[in-house]
């Protein structure tokens, strides 16, 4: 119930969340759009689980996490099933945490209703295989502070395969067309991955950026990208991406906007 209070006030802060009979425990990590079975229990002080204990379970989210610096009443977050129950003879109640596509910081609260005790777990809904796109010798990062998803430290996270792929493709292109220069990398994935909702409504478009496998490379002059770093030969850049492992059917040139290189077919990940 405390987390529900938190959520109703989520726009303001997460200030009021836990009373003195609560405790905070270790993190759980769950992938976006996943179903996860865990086991709730009430405990005696020696660590023995209490059989037939009545429990309630709640979920909530932390605003302004996962690079989502926007909020509204429709903000999605994980659900728990069942929301209440009684532990079995061994003292456990299996519960299922179903996450959404939103990568963010969340919380699970388990309450021992028989003794008035609660514990809050922090959980991260995230892909924890993402790395920051850190190649300052060959790419300028742009696109930050434009869509309520933080500065350029938040929108440039990719899997190891994809970040290596775009780094190599950039080097290949620059060697031929702009030696010593740089390209401009616009949106890749958010730091936790998951839905990159550029319209701040928790949904697409931008679905191909939901797994940290794709990145947009600027080809338009006069925007955030300095003219000297604009990719002047988009089709050539696209071919370099494909030669470095980008999926041909998932990569394309959006004329006048960007080259979109993706190292995975979007049908292979939740989006």
């Amino acid at each position: 119930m405390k987390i529900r209070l938190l959520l109703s006030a989520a726009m303001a802060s997460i200030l009021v969340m836990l009373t003195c009979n609560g405790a905070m425990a270790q993190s759980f990590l769950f992938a976006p759009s996943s179903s996860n079975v865990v086991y709730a229990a009430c405990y005696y002080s020696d660590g023995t689980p209490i059989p037939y204990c009545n429990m309630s379970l709640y979920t909530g989210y932390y605003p302004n996490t996962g690079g989502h610096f926007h909020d509204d009443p429709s903000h999605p977050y994980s659900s728990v099933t069942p929301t209440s129950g009684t532990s079995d003879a061994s003292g456990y109640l299996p519960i299922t945490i179903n996450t959404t596509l939103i990568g963010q910081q969340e919380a699970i609260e388990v309450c021992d209703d028989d003794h008035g005790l609660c514990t809050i777990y922090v959980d991260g809904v995230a892909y924890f295989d993402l790395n920051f796109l850190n190649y300052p010798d060959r790419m300028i990062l742009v696109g930050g502070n434009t869509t309520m998803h933080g500065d350029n430290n938040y929108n440039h996270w990719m899997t190891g395969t994809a970040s290596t792929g775009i780094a190599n493709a950039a080097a290949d292109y620059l060697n031929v067309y702009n030696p010593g220069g740089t390209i401009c990398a616009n949106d890749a994935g958010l730091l936790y991955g998951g839905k990159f909702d550029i319209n701040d409504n928790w949904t697409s478009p931008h679905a191909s950026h939901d797994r940290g496998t794709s990145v947009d490379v600027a080809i338009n002059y006069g925007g955030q990208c300095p003219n000297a770093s604009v990719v002047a030969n988009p089709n050539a850049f696209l071919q370099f991406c494909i030669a470095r492992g980008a999926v041909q059917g998932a990569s394309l040139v959006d004329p006048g906007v960007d080259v979109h290189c993706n190292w995975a077919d979007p049908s292979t990940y939740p989006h």
Partner: protein
Amino acid sequence: MARLLIVVLLTASVYTLSSYGQGQRAVAPGILPVPPWPADGNVNALPPGRYVFFNPKNAEWVISYPETLADPQSPRVTLRLGSRAQVTPSIEVHINRESNGSFSYSYLIVNAATARTPIQGWTLLVPAQDSKLAATHPIWGMHSNTGTPAREGPGLVTPTPLVALEWSAIDTARVMPGAGVGAFSVTSSCSPGFSTASFRGSVRTGSSEQLTAPLPEAVAEQLRTILTSRDTQVKLTLGPKFTPDATKTMIADNFHYGISSLVQQGVLAGDTAFVAGALQALGSFLTSNGTGSLDPERLDFMSQAKAGTEEAEIANALRWSLSAAK
């Protein structure tokens, strides 16, 4: 008559089970990330596809799998690993700005009297690219683990590559339940922010790689997840965090999360002028799309931190980091 007998038997059964912890008080409930190991050892009802379990009676992870994974009826291999998370740590930090511009961090760790095992070691994640980084303790050994890129827990992720500072005790210097050990010292050029410290008990040795290497991959994957995220006790603390290229958004994000979490843990009161003011100012900045102001000299809540408390330490840390930010 028959119905009455059943009711009596059921009642007796419930009473017997309930009386197992008789005389003990209930403590905070919890969630196990893996299925519980059956108290009677009966493996016939184990959930399919799950190979790692927890036995609360002995505080141990139980790895149990059919010798041939594709054949559930094949003989089972069962291994037991003591959990290293049976410690109850707390951590205090004091930070100083040195005349050469570096920061010194001094830590005291305590293992509560209720802990089941002594603290054998602890780890602090710090930025890897730091020319002034040094970590010492008069007795404990310190190892800087650069082999595997370290990752912060949820809420604290930044683009900065990290390294793990790992302190280990010799047997006579472990932190026994009810005791504390200080004089852990870190010097760094990085300004302070919230970071994670993870504490491990002294029940076994062996790295995650060594423990999982002999196992079938499907089993090893489940155990690896447990050993990396659930086999230590993790605490928030202030530590070296921000390199000079850190942005105010990153700093605000980190402190907003850290202060919020400490309020939840009961370490900070949520209704003080400092905490309320900090969360309001940091939250507003984060939702400003980079257009807000966060000038440390103009933040009224800073001066309202209670002297000599965690609030004062956090206020100093926030002031130093914002002053150094781009």
